[in-house]
């Protein structure tokens, strides 16, 4: 046999054996494969199939005519979007509210997790934890009513500030656009901080106690333990959560803005979600709404990939 023939033979055996091993593995894991089928179907059915609806963005879609008979209009829906000043306004609002929310919800929940971790009294710790995550289960409708009544002219906030002499006459909090982002971020932090803390507490619990014991032997103070053991211990969790959140950056939320907006603060309150609702469901202009939705999804995916790439570059945990 020549060298070539030997090479060919070797190639055949490796490929065949590899192939064989793939099928054997598959056969071996058939229970697992069967278990994953429903999930796979679910994802295909509810996440991939609906994206066929994206064709609406390139049509003048009319429900009575359906996808097949609506007129094709190319990119004109996108042109309408890019020519609409409201679209840019809502784009800015979405990005800004999302980023504020990201920064504050991450920092507050990590701080709360660190503080809770330091509490030695179990009963007190549990109590704080329960109280702080209960608002998570309230719907936004209730939270927004609370916000509105707290911020009303004779509400708690105005009474407190008047009582302390910080302001001379009550402030119409929801009547000024530039307060809106702050109000929304605070409401969001209040509602979600306890809930977001749970995952960090779990991560902290997973840290090997031997590390703390060793640190104590070396004379580390409480803050040094936090700084050198706890924080690095939850870094992985933090990065993964951050990447996932960045993937949702365009979704600044819908309910709180919908419930708290009014004519006076609309320039700061309307998000892209509301823009889509307005065109899609109130005016039945599904094509324009879909075009806006596609843009949102595209930006989200781009952000997700970028965050993932950066995480990889700086040697951190990554999602994909």
């Amino acid at each position, binding site marked *: 046999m020549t060298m070539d023939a030997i090479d060919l033979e070797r190639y055949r055996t490796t490929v065949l054996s590899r192939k064989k091993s793939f099928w054997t593995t598959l056969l071996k894991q058939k229970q697992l494969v069967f278990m994953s089928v429903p999930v796979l179907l679910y994802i295909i059915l509810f996440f991939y199939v609906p994206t066929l609806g994206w064709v609406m963005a390139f049509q003048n879609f009319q429900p009575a005519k359906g996808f097949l008979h609506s007129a094709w209009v190319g990119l004109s829906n996108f042109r309408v979007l890019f020519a609409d000043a409201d679209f840019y306004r809502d784009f800015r609002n979405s990005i800004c509210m999302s980023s504020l929310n990201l920064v504050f919800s991450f920092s507050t929940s990590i701080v709360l997790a660190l503080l809770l971790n330091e509490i030695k009294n179990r009963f007190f710790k549990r109590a704080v934890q329960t109280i702080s995550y209960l608002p998570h289960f309230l719907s936004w409708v209730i939270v927004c009513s609370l916000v509105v009544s707290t911020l009303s*002219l004779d509400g708690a906030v105005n009474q407190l500030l008047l009582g302390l002499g910080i302001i001379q006459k009550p402030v*119409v909090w929801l*009547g000024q656009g530039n307060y809106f982002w702050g109000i929304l971020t605070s409401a969001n932090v209040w509602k979600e901080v306890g809930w977001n803390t749970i995952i960090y507490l779990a991560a902290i619990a997973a840290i090997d106690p031997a590390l703390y014991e060793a640190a104590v032997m070396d004379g580390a103070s409480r803050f040094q333990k936090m700084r050198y053991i706890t924080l690095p211990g939850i870094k992985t969790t933090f990065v993964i959560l951050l990447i996932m959140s960045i993937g949702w950056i365009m979704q600044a939320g819908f309910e709180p803005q919908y419930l708290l907006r*009014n004519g*006076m603060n609309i320039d700061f309150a309307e998000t892209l979600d509301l823009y889509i609702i*307005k065109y899609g469901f109130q005016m039945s202009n599904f094509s324009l709404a879909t075009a806006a939705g596609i843009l949102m999804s595209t930006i989200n995916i781009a952000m997700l990939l970028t965050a993932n790439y950066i995480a990889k570059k700086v040697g951190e945990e990554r999602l994909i």
Partner: protein
Amino acid sequence: MILKKRFVWLFIAVLSFSLAFSGCGSSSDTPVNNTTDAAVTPASGTTEASGQPADITPTEISVFISDPGQQAPTPDNAVYKMIQEKLGVTFQWDFLVGDKDQKIGVMIAGGDYPDLLFVDTYSNPKFMSAGALIPLDDLMKNNAPNLYAHYKPVWNIAKNPEDGKFYIMANYGVLKGTYQAPRWEGSAFWIQKAVLADAGYPAPPKTLDEYFSLIENYMAKNPTIEGQPTIGFETLCEGWRDFCLKHPPEHLMGRPNDGDTTVVNGKCTSFWDTNEAKVYYKKLNEEMQKGIIDPEFFSLTYDQYIAKLSSGAVLGLFDQHWDFGNNAELNLANANKDERTWIPCELTLPGYKPYYQDQPVVNVNTGFAITKSCKDPERVIKLFDTLMTEEWQKILGWGLPGKDYTVGSDGKFTLTTEQSNQNNDTAYRLANRAYTLWYYGPKMEGTYSDGNATSPGLSPEVFYNGLHQYDKDFMAKYNRKTWAEFLTPAPPNPISYPLWQIDKVAGSLADVAWSKYNDVGTKYLPRLILAEPDKFDSMWTEYVDSLHKIDLKPYYDRIDSQLQWREKNWAPNAE
């Protein structure tokens, strides 16, 4: 309140169970020839206007009502029993339970309909596109002279604009005799009765200045009402109810309620950028500076708005009566705080005549329609024809004489206190009145040939007798007997009126253009009212510029073409 609600639900639950069980056995149990009240004689199935003897072989008509929260009448209901005996017809009611879309969707998908459907503006396009309804034109002309005579004056309004055929028997808005509702349910500036009483019952204000100076004077004397800080004037700009904020200028300009825009010289015109609008909002701006207007108005939800009105501390507002009458005003009246409820004022700017009250409009696309599944449409239309006679209309509208209402020696129909209570009692209605049939079916509105109102709700006597003493005394000061008399009587509606009923066609350019225009108003009007007085004028210019930047042509084109279509087709007897 919650407890009361719970009782109501419990009651409904018990009732529906008992109905379900009694319904199972009733069809065979009920003897057809049951003896009825001896006092009941006026109607008989044989007095059809056509003179032919009526077909009274027993038949059953199935009906679907697409409103939730309805209940079937009791099996021995007095009026339905009479219909069964005299006309041979029993009804098989099917009321909406669960999701309306789904129920209608299933019905359409199966192509299986009841004989009779209650259709409304929302479900009409669905049933029409499914071809579920049959045209009634010939059926009615050949078999139902009374019904045809009833609809003839509004035939062109009630018919389908697409194919010109008549499908739906409109349930409201077809008038007879003199129509005068005791209450005005539409738009007005409202002022608290206590304000007028305190000022010595002056003539109700006619101008913005008179209106606000009355309110200012009262507010100066009464900074709080029952512990609540007094609110001089309240308005609302939430969602579709923003007409409270946006519509006043059109009324100040002497126009009736056309909605978002009005008609000038036959053309749809915006009143948002007019000088009249500027005068109004500038006045509100001044009143805001004086502390008369609620500084939170722009962020109020409807519930908060109603809560404020229900407190009795609100002296004035602009709204349509139905928007607050059944909750805020009713709450106050039930708490015997009649002096805290309001009367309508028709304010105008100098040079304009008030035109607040309008004539009721035909409730197009809303009412009973016969489906293609109906085996004997002729019988159904004949039934409604008989029911359209005055004898039967009285039974449907008032009930049985002596039992449900009293006939005075002068022939006037009145209600005793007990009858009045029964009239409002749902359980009593289910057992004794054909309320559902009357409410959803074709009906006369106004007065009968004997001068009596067509139903207790339209009778000034019944209305007046039902008033609290405070209101009677209040009216006596003004020498009036109904609230509607505080406003100028309604002239005949212009042919194409009202503009607000015109469909902008969802998602069309007209719709988008209007939505943008509307958004500018939502954004600027609260700012204008809250602005520093010296900045008002420049902000107004900015507002008007923003309005003018929007191309309203598609909107105007759509509305104008519909107005023209109505002018051509809605003229009386344009057939």
